[in-house]
C-alpha cells in the first residue's frame, strides 16, 4: 500500500502568521486573498475549531431562506469517482437565525462575508434580501442554481427570463454588491450570465453542482433519498473552468468568482487564468477542514511569480 500517499510535500504551516501578498477585488470589495469558502460547505460553528476564518479571502455562508427549511430526508449524499454528490435541499435555520447568530459571529471573528440567498419563489428571495440589505454582510450571493429543490433554485438559473425578472425585483432593494450564482446544468451558461448582468448583477459566481446520481448495486436502488444530487469536487473542475472561460469571453468586464473542483492552489490559479477574479472552495473542505486556508496559502505563493496577473487582481481588473 501507499504510505503517505497524500503527504503535502510543499509543506506550509497554515497556523503561522502570514502577510497576504496578493489581494483581489470583487465588485469593489477587497478580499485579502482570492480564496473564499463555497456556500453550503462552511458552518462557522464547525470550522472555527480548525483555523482562523478571518484569514480567508471571504466566507461564503449556507443558502438562507426567509423561514427555516428542513431540506431533504437522508441519506443526502453519495460518492462519485473524484467527487461527492449532495442533496441537502437547502436545509437552514432561516434568515432571522442567520442575522442573530451566524453573521454576527463571523463578523466578530473578522471574516468578510458573502451571504448566500435561497428561495422557492421570487417573494422568498425578496424577503431574504430585504433583511440582509441593512445587515453586516459584505456581499450577497443570489443562488439561482441549486439542483436539489423542486421550486426556485436551478429552475430560475436555467431560465434567463425568470432570472431577469427576479433580478429586476432584487436589484433596487440594496446597494450591497450582488453576486448571481449560476448552474452548469444549461446548454450555454453565457445566456443566464448575460441576463443576470444586464439586470443588475455586480458579479457572477459559478459553478454550482452538476446534476448526478448513484445507485447501490447491492440493492439496485438510488443511494440518495432524493434520488438525484449535485456533483461537486475534483471531477467537476474542467466543467467549472469551461464555464468561467466562456463567460469571461462573452462578458469581458464582469467580476467572476470561480467555483468547482478546487483542491489546490494550482487549481485556484487555473481559474484565475480562465478569467476568475476570485475563487471559492467547496467539497475539498469536506475532505479536510483546513483545505480552503491551505489553498489560499498555496495560491499566495504561486502568484509571487505572476506579477502581471496579481496586479490585475489587486486592481479588480479582469484577466483575458
Amino acid at each position, binding site marked *: 500500500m*501507499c504510505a*503517505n500517499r497524500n503527504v503535502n510535500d510543499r509543506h506550509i504551516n497554515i497556523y503561522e502568521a502570514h502577510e497576504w501578498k496578493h489581494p483581489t477585488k470583487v465588485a469593489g470589495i477587497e478580499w485579502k486573498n482570492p480564496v473564499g469558502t463555497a456556500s453550503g460547505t462552511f*458552518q462557522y460553528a464547525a470550522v472555527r475549531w480548525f483555523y482562523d476564518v478571518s484569514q480567508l479571502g471571504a466566507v461564503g455562508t449556507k443558502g438562507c431562506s426567509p423561514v427555516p427549511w*428542513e431540506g431533504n430526508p437522508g441519506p443526502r449524499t453519495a460518492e462519485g469517482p473524484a467527487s461527492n454528490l449532495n442533496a441537502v435541499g437547502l436545509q437552514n435555520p432561516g434568515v432571522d437565525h442567520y442575522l442573530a447568530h451566524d453573521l454576527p459571529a463571523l463578523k466578530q471573528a473578522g471574516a468578510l462575508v458573502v451571504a448566500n440567498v435561497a428561495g422557492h419563489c421570487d417573494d422568498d428571495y425578496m424577503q431574504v434580501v430585504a433583511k440582509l440589505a441593512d445587515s453586516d454582510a459584505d456581499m450577497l450571493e443570489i443562488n439561482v442554481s441549486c439542483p436539489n429543490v423542486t421550486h426556485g433554485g436551478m429552475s430560475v438559473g436555467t431560465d434567463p427570463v425568470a432570472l431577469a425578472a427576479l433580478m429586476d425585483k432584487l436589484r433596487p432593494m440594496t446597494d450591497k454588491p450582488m453576486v448571481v450564482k449560476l448552474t452548469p446544468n444549461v446548454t450555454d451558461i453565457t445566456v443566464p450570465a448575460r441576463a443576470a448582468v444586464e439586470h443588475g448583477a455586480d458579479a457572477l459566481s459559478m459553478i454550482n453542482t452538476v446534476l448526478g446520481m448513484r445507485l447501490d448495486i447491492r440493492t439496485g436502488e438510488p443511494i440518495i433519498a432524493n434520488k438525484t444530487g449535485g456533483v461537486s469536487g475534483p471531477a467537476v473542475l474542467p466543467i467549472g473552468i469551461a464555464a468561467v472561460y466562456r463567460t469571461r469571453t462573452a462578458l469581458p468586464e464582469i467580476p467572476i468568482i470561480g467555483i468547482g473542483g478546487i483542491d489546490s492552489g494550482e487549481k485556484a490559479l487555473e481559474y484565475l487564468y480562465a478569467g476568475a477574479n476570485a475563487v471559492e472552495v467547496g467539497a475539498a473542505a*469536506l*475532505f479536510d477542514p483546513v483545505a480552503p486556508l491551505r489553498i489560499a496559502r498555496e495560491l499566495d505563493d504561486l502568484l509571487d511569480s505572476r506579477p502581471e496577473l496579481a496586479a490585475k487582481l489587486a486592481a479588480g481588473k479582469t484577466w483575458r
Partner: protein
Amino acid sequence: MTSSFTSTYDVVAEAQAAGYFPPRHTVEVTDVRELADHVVRLTFRDPFIASHAKPAQFVNLFTHDDFMLMPRPFGVSEVEDDEVSVIFAVIGHGTEQLAELEAGDGVDVLGPLGRGFDLKQDANYILVGGGLGVPPLIYAAQKLAENDASFATAVFGYRDEHFAEEYVSRYADWSWSIDNAEGNVVDLLNRLEQGDALKAFDRKPIILSCGPLPMMKAVAEWAAERDIPAQLSMEQRMGCGYGTCVLCTVDTVDGRLKVCSDGPVFTREQLGWGE
C-alpha cells in the same frame, strides 16, 4: 500531489500549538488483523485521538484512492496508550482498501468526532450492540472499567461469527452474546430481566446502544416500556463528519439534526422512539 491534503506528521503539533483542533493528517498503522470473515480490526498511532476520544466518538479514515475522496467514519473501539483501534466490516471499495493496509503504512485520519455517550452517572450500563455497532460499545466498556462505581453489562447480537468476544471480555463486567441463528438482543434483554439480573443491581440501568436501525428501535421500545434511559448511537452517510455540510441528518423530535456533530448519540426521547 493532486489531492494534497495536510498530512505531515507534525501538523497535529502545529495545530495544537496554535490552539486549534488538528486537521486531517497522516498516522502510522501499527496493527491490522482479521477478526472474522470480512471483519477487520485496524490500529494506528495517534496520541491526540488516543487522549481525547470518548466512547461512540468516531474517526474519519480516508483511502489512498482519488476515486474515493469521502470520509469513512468508524467508531473508536479501543485505546491503548497512544494507539487507537477501530473494527470494521468490509462492505465496499473503501473498506476493502483500508483492510489491505499493513503495519507501517500511513493512513489519513480526522478526529475524534461527534458527541459520545454520556457516562457521567455512576450506573449499571447495559451495552446493547448489534453487528458493527459492537465496536463503539467495546470502547464504552473499556472506559467504564476505569470507573469502579459503574457496572458494564454487554449484550451483543452478531450476524454469525462472534468477532469481538476477545475484546469485550477484557473490559465488561458481564457479557452475553447471540447470533442471528440463535435469536436477537431483545431476547437476551428479556432473559436478563427474567433472570432477575437487572433487579440485582443497586442502581437503575442505563442503556447504551449501537447497531442496525430496527434493532435500536426495538431496544428503545424495550427501554421505554421499563422507563430505562437509552442513549442510541446513529449512523448516516456523511460528507464531512465535523458539522460543516449538513449531509448526515437524522429526523428527531427537534427536526433534522446532524449525526456527526449533534450526535451520533441521541436519546430515545430525541428520536421519539418508544413513545
